[in-house]
């Protein structure tokens, strides 16, 4: 039921009325007078030397203002990256191309159609080289893509060696020893976690307006990281951050792809400064598919060793992760996020090795979950295979190996400590809401009729809301953009003279409902009604430094800052109210739109009166200065570790391999909840994306490097029509890391779902003896697996 109550209340999202009426304003909706449009010439081939590039005909087309190639922008250097391991992306192709879709030339014209015509008029010849697409082949260095690097393998992440300063023990010998035990059951599977396209519904868009008279640059961009983008543009264009303002208006989905800074953003800003006119570029859907970062793209062998009676003895992952042709923002660091949760909810030694390799494809980087869905997928799939091998119920196996509530904070072999958790409780809740025993009965009855029905279970723990800031020591920061602060979040709380409140936060949401949740935090702290609070975000000039919205961090970090700013405002307001009410500040209580003396609700003042006193000044108590606002910039002392357990029931059509998702249950624990409806919304979207990976999605390059799924015709994403109603529940285990006890929920649904669905399909095929099918479980693959099992 919708209420107007605050913390923990189901408050309807205040951003939605504008959005559902089509009144939301996105970057592409802005066009100052005289705005020029951009189109890029992109490579049609995966790997080649450019032997001729002639833009003269394009430049002659009326309405074309400029055509730029590498020579024009070489002085700006390659695109900055936080983790500069690998070859950095040239802003425009530097004499060679390394993936289909790489930008070769940039046309600036009076309108977008002319720009596209000019792109067609550019003449370019290629001397094609063999493309390297297959991950194992790339890792073999049979063909080295960037000769100057000497190898396609950019880096190898290991569980103990990723951060030398921690002096971690290599647990590989423990795992290997366990495999030699007489009672050891060793289960191993080769599995693909395929490459995905993030598919934000709003394509990326950037509008830059350099004002020569003022020497300042204002950039609107569909970005998740306004402050970071401002830093990146300033650094790359050798400007001061003081002169660059980035505004992220409505952002229609990002899922991580908009936390990268892109060459197009730098180029558009640069062109505006060059030309002294506003310049805008909005990607086409094909560019969104082939020139915005991809996610996942791993192949790995997962091995679990345990005893016959279900005790895990160790886990080993040996994998290869696809980095694409060039490294961008965090590319090479993405697997590291998986490493930290390699052992999931379980207590056991881990041996983990992931090679980061170059291929002639688009760059990979953070996509909803970023490294964590991959890591959890491998772990939870192999646990399922192990449970099957020893003939134990998959939930029971998991329960046997969970960290126990009293063991938190639980220090992992990778040096991090899980903050809080009660994994058994969440799993118990799942069994209840799903009626697990009843489901199993229904499955067995269906099986007896010869139907292929299966149940899959999957647990996860994830890590989000980063810091600690010391991660900067291993390159996990935003310093490449001149922002030394690794993980700042911010909140500014201002009580206006009329008694309403303005909240300004450093986040860059793309649909997460910050205007609602943050109003709830402030309303709860001050007793100002929700309708009297407006929340602003996404403007680097007006908001205090916050690094943006990604990694399920906003509430835990910027929310904490806002919570603290609210407390500070309340303290000051209490002093002012105390004077007005002739009481002691300790006796002031805030509720119902004002303050009153504890125990005497009739002795009160409203917020307007408090604000008037605050700004007018002469009636203020001694030592209290005018105004009523506070700004807090917060860096979290630690990350948070949400968790949950999901369950899916599926039926497979034995004649076609078609998978129908019949039922889906999820229990997620993100600590305290500010708005349970928003939490559920995040879980819904997250599950949909995980199901998308499990069943449909595949960013597929052929061996020549052509992206065969470059449009939504060939890259199906799940819609509501493809999904059952999800049955959701939660447990609440607050984190001690922040005062609200909140963890993140943005990525949990995705991290928890893909393996759950695959586990269910494999369970459905169990009577045929199928042990594994690689995602996406398109009918053709499931059918092929059935045929193979029957043969």
């Amino acid at each position, binding site marked *: 039921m919708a209420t107007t109550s605050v913390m923990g209340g189901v408050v309807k999202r205040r951003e939605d009325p504008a959005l559902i009426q089509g009144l939301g304003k996105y970057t592409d909706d802005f066009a100052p007078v005289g705005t020029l449009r951009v*189109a890029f010439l992109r490579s049609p081939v995966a790997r080649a030397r450019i032997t001729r590039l002639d833009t003269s005909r394009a430049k002659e087309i009326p309405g074309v203002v400029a055509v730029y190639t590498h020579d024009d922008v070489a002085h700006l250097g390659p695109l900055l990256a936080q983790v500069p391991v690998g070859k950095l992306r040239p802003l425009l192709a530097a004499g060679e191309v390394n993936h289909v879709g790489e930008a070769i030339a940039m046309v600036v014209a009076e309108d977008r*159609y002319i720009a596209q015509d000019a792109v*067609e008029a550019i003449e370019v010849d290629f001397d094609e080289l063999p493309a390297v697409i297959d991950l194992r082949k790339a890792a073999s260095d049979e063909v080295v893509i960037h000769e100057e690097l000497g190898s396609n393998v950019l880096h190898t992440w290991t569980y103990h060696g990723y951060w030398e300063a921690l002096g971690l023990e290599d647990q590989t010998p423990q795992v290997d020893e366990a495999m030699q035990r007489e009672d050891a059951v060793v289960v191993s599977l080769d599995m693909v976690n395929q490459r995905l396209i993030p598919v934000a519904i709003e394509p990326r868009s950037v509008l830059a307006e350099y004002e020569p008279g003022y020497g300042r640059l204002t950039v609107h961009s569909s970005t998740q990281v306004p402050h970071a983008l401002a830093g990146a543009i300033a650094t790359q264009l050798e400007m001061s951050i003081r002169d660059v303002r980035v505004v992220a208006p409505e952002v229609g989905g990002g899922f991580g792809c908009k936390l990268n800074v892109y060459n197009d953003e730098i180029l558009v800003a640069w062109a505006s400064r060059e030309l002294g006119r506003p310049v805008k570029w909005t990607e086409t859907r094909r560019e969104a598919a082939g020139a915005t970062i991809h996610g996942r793209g791993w192949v790995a062998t997962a091995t679990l060793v345990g005893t016959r009676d279900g005790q895990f003895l160790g886990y080993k992952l040996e994998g290869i992760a696809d980095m694409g042709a060039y490294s961008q923002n965090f590319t090479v660091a993405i697997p590291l996020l998986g490493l930290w949760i390699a052992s999931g909810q379980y207590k056991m030694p881990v041996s983990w090795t992931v090679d980061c390799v170059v291929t002639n494809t688009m760059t990979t980087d953070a996509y909803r979950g970023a490294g964590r869905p991959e890591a959890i997928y491998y772990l939870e799939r192999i646990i399922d295979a192990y449970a099957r091998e020893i003939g134990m119920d998959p939930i029971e196996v998991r329960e046997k190996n969970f960290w126990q509530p009293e063991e938190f904070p639980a220090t992992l072999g990778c040096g991090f400590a899980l903050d809080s958790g009660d994994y058994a409780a969440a799993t118990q809740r799942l069994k209840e809401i799903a009626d697990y025993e009843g489901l199993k009965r229904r499955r067995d009855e269906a099986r007896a009729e010869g139907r292929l029905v299966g149940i899959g279970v999957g647990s996860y723990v994830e890590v989000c809301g980063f810091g600690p800031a010391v991660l900067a020591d291993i390159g996990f920061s935003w310093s490449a953009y001149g922002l030394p602060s690794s993980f700042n979040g911010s909140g500014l709380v201002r009580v206006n003279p009329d008694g309403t409140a303005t909240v300004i936060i450093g986040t860059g949401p793309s649909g997460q409902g910050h205007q609602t949740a943050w109003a709830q935090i402030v309303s709860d702290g001050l007793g100002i009604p929700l309708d009297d609070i407006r929340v602003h975000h996404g403007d680097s000039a007006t908001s205090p430094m916050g690094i943006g919205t990604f990694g399920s961090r906003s509430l835990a970090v910027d929310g904490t800052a806002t919570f603290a700013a609210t407390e500070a405002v309340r303290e000051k307001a209490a002093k002012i109210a105390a004077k007005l009410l002739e009481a002691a500040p300790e006796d002031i209580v805030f509720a119902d739109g004002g303050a009153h003396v504890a125990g005497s609700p009739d002795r009160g003042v409203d917020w307007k009166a408090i604000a008037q006193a605050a700004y007018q000044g002469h009636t203020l108590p001694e030592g209290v200065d005018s105004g009523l606002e506070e700004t807090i910039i917060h860096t979290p002392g630690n990350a948070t570790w949400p968790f949950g357990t999901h369950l899916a029931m599926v039926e497979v059509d034995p*004649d076609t391999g078609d998978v*129908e998702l019949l039922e889906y249950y999820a229990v997620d624990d993100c600590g305290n909840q500010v708005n349970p409806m928003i939490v559920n919304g995040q879980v819904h979207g997250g599950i949909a994306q995980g199901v998308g990976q499990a069943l449909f999605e595949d960013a*597929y390059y052929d061996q020549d490097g052509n992206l065969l799924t470059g*449009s939504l015709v060939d890259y199906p994403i799940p819609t509501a029509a493809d999904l059952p109603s999800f049955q959701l529940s939660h447990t609440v285990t607050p984190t001690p890391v922040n005062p609200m006890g909140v963890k993140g929920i943005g990525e949990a649904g995705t991290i928890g779902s893909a393996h759950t669905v695959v586990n269910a399909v494999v369970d459905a095929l169990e009577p045929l003896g199928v042990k594994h099918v690689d995602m996406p479980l398109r009918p*053709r693959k499931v059918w092929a697996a059935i045929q193979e099992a029957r043969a």
Partner: protein
Amino acid sequence: MYPRQFDYVAPTSLDEAYGALGDDSKVLAGGMSLIPLMKMRLLSPGTLVDIGRIPGLDAIEDKGDHISIGALVRHSTTAGHPLIAQHAPALAQAAGMTGDVQVRNRGTTCGSLAHVDVAADQPAAVLAHGGVAVVGSASGTREVMADAFCMDTLTADLSPNEILLEIRLPKAGPGEGSAYDKLGRRGGHSDYAVAGVAAWVKMDAGSITDARVAITGVGTKPSLLPEVSQALIGTDGSESAVASAAEHAVDGVTVLEDLYGSVEYKTHLAKVYAKRAIQKAIGSIRA
């Protein structure tokens, strides 16, 4: 996603439309297939002739001896129209499984036939129902059997100065039934057909006296499967009779591999859906 330059005309009569059509023009109906091709610059007609404002093309009518589907009848209308439900259930089902709500509200049944996508749903049903394409131009109208009208991938028997005015379907008689079934690219019935089969069957005294079966999604175009029909005629329509007829589901069809299926898989699906569609058609007669 920015087309090359083109002219746009929106005539309000057929004569005006014929006058506007020429070698470098294209008819624009619902635009669900044409506009994306233009935006990707895969197709760049000099003139778009939008037939959307020509009165009289948007009706499904009982013309006595046949049912007529006008050039501007949308998928959603075809899917929900009582005359189609009565006389061509396979087409109603195929239209209901085409795309999504937005596509069904704009795309036209005639446009789907004229476009001849390898994986389009409704052409298979039109073929199975023995549909006829009525093609008009400044010099009059001509009729072509729908099967012949779908010449090849993305190629209809239409010259640039012609308009597909209507599709005519025979009216259903006693003992007739039809059905369409498919596997969509997204699984289930959603999205273009990985394999789709439409079956029309006529039975008399417990045996099949006539049949037409058409396939889409697996070959180069939606096409009739005369071998399947032949194998059905004279049988009692039992499961085994249907299954053995369905074995001919790719006879004469060049099966193409794509992202959604190998040749082997698509061949198999063709047989599965032939069987399912025929059984449903027979079931609808018996019901």
